[in-house]
């Protein structure tokens, strides 16, 4: 039997999870539309389906903890507190964007939020997370670095080097693998000798745990526990969250390598309606409240699009700015 939600968190936090997941979904689906319209260009990797991971995980962390991720990171930034308007503006390539239009979809960053970046080189964020964790440890700060990455990233050399390093230097890193079972078109068992990813930490003596990444509460609990362990021991900890992306790898990918049946199974596990059901069943929210949350999210996203549309382009001269101090 599942624990009752109220036994875990107060109502307003439970509801915030829902708000954040809905906002994430709405934001991403709006991005798809803006991409189709040609307002967003380049690569666009959407997070739809994986919301429970970012929402649950962010809630399980302290506000001071560093977060790093890959290129599928809009919701991670927004949940951490980034202004959806400035995120959208970044995707539009406007000067009001989070990174002045220099980063784009794959490179969101906000140091004030300790959101230390989206990275587009698969595996690039591993050593950087270790470095941030080292700096925190060095200064005796009570913060950890949470490093998100995909199932495809675990075969990159940096994964190995960084896990070994984090354990050896006893660094406060929480590794969070978002296992959505595919790296572009390659299913995890075709890229990993050991497809059960959390078991790969055995070679580094790093404790690991697997969690249902479609269940925001399960993710929250796992990350909260993991983050506490990291804080307590000063050592790395590893979480594998199994999840699914409802869309292709990027907007360019029709995802023909996945069967309709597989997709259906995962659709039935959509973290948003399932969580809505629990909120309703346990009387934490009414349908009217949930509808209002959706409406508000849609409004926020519309406002973000409007802001992005109306924002100015970067000045030509800006190409030479922000390179050297």
């Amino acid at each position: 039997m599942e624990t009752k939600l109220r036994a875990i968190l107060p109502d307003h936090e439970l509801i915030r999870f829902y708000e954040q997941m809905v906002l994430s979904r709405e934001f991403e689906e709006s991005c798809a539309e803006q991409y189709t319209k040609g307002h967003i260009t380049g690569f666009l990797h959407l997070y739809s389906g994986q919301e429970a991971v970012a929402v649950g995980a962010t809630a399980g962390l302290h506000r001071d903890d560093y977060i790093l991720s890959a290129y599928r990171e809009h919701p991670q930034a927004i949940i951490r507190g980034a202004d959806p308007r400035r995120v959208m503006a970044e995707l539009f390539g406007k000067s009001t964007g989070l990174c002045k239009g220099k980063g784009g979809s794959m490179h969101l960053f906000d140091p004030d939020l300790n959101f230390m970046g989206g990275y587009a080189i698969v595996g690039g964020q591993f050593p950087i997370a270790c470095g941030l964790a080292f700096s925190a440890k060095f200064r005796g700060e009570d913060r950890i670095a949470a490093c998100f990455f995909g199932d495809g990233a675990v075969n990159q050399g940096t994964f190995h080097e960084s896990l070994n390093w984090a354990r050896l230097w006893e660094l406060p890193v929480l590794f969070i693998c978002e296992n959505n079972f595919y790296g572009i078109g390659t299913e995890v068992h075709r890229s990993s000798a050991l497809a059960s990813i959390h078991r790969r930490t055995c070679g580094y003596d790093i404790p690991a745990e697997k969690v249902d990444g479609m269940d925001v509460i399960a993710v929250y609990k796992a990350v909260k526990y993991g983050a506490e362990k990291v804080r307590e021991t000063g050592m790395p900890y590893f979480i594998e969250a199994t999840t699914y992306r409802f869309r292709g790898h990027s907007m360019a990918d029709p995802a023909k390598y996945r069967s309709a049946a597989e997709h259906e199974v995962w659709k039935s596990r959509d973290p948003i309606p399932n969580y809505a059901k629990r909120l309703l069943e346990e009387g934490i929210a009414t349908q009217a409240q949930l509808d209002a949350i959706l409406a508000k999210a849609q409004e926020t996203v519309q406002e973000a699009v409007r802001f992005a549309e109306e924002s100015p382009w970067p000045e030509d001269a800006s190409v030479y700015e922000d390179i050297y101090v």
Partner: protein
Amino acid sequence: MPEMTYRDALNMALKEEMRRDPSVVTWGEDVALYEGSFKVTRGLLAEFGEERVKDTPISENTIVGVAVGAAMGGLRPIAELMTVNFALLAMDQIVDHMAKIRSMFGGQVNLPMVVRMPGGGGSQLGAQHSQSLETYFMHCPGLYVAYPATPADAKGLLKSAIRDNNPVIFLEHELLYNSKGEVPEDPEFLVPFGQASVMRPGTDATIVAYARMSILAQQAAAELENDGISCEVIDLRTLTPLDTETIMASVQRTGRAVVVEECWRTAGLGGHIAATIGENCFDTLRAPVKRVSGLDVPMPYSRKIERICIPQTETIAAAVRELMAAKY
């Protein structure tokens, strides 16, 4: 001759060579089941099967290194890196192994292998995905470096690369995949390495370029023609071997040269070509050799400013005009 895209021409080359020689094998991230992130390997898995067409983990250094070993073992591997940007993870196997093994082992072994990689900027992919790293490969003895501009060259150079017994870096431009041109169907059609192509003859100035820059240079030359300026456009085809002969012969005639490089200007390959022209054509040069280069900045995402960072038809034309106008 049929018209086809650069992408299809590459695909044709791969298929023809794999049919011709059973020791040709290929692997890379998503090249098999997914048929390539840019679909260059479409149909390969179906035709040649999973022993010859293989998906790999995301492990670029090892993608190249396994090809090095397989080539040593007598196969003719073609490794694909999803884009040239990821070659930075494989520089150890490319520069320290692929380029050096033959020489450091005293010539006792050949590495008949190809590393294919799409590259270039202009698609709003941001700093980490828009690099033009051709200088890194050209600045590494032991490698050949091909970078076709046209569909026909794409086919002919790739086939030569696969048949060559030296290790070849084979660059493809992401923005050329959909470009079209006539491509010989002859399965023995090869474009030899080290022979630049004079894309357009001219008398007033020589434009030396490669890959997409050659296409832009052609457009610039067409535009300049209207102003009565006649440009010779040389497409290098291979950066190594470099066809200095064709370049020098042209500059000797025209007395003016513009070198166009998509890569960063500072310490870029254009400097080498410009310097080589300077050394060889000192007497005949009527003006300094000009370089039109990518700006020395990490590529910004926003299309508004990305455009400025890459040579465009108009910047090339402007450089030629400046050269013509200058009084020395």
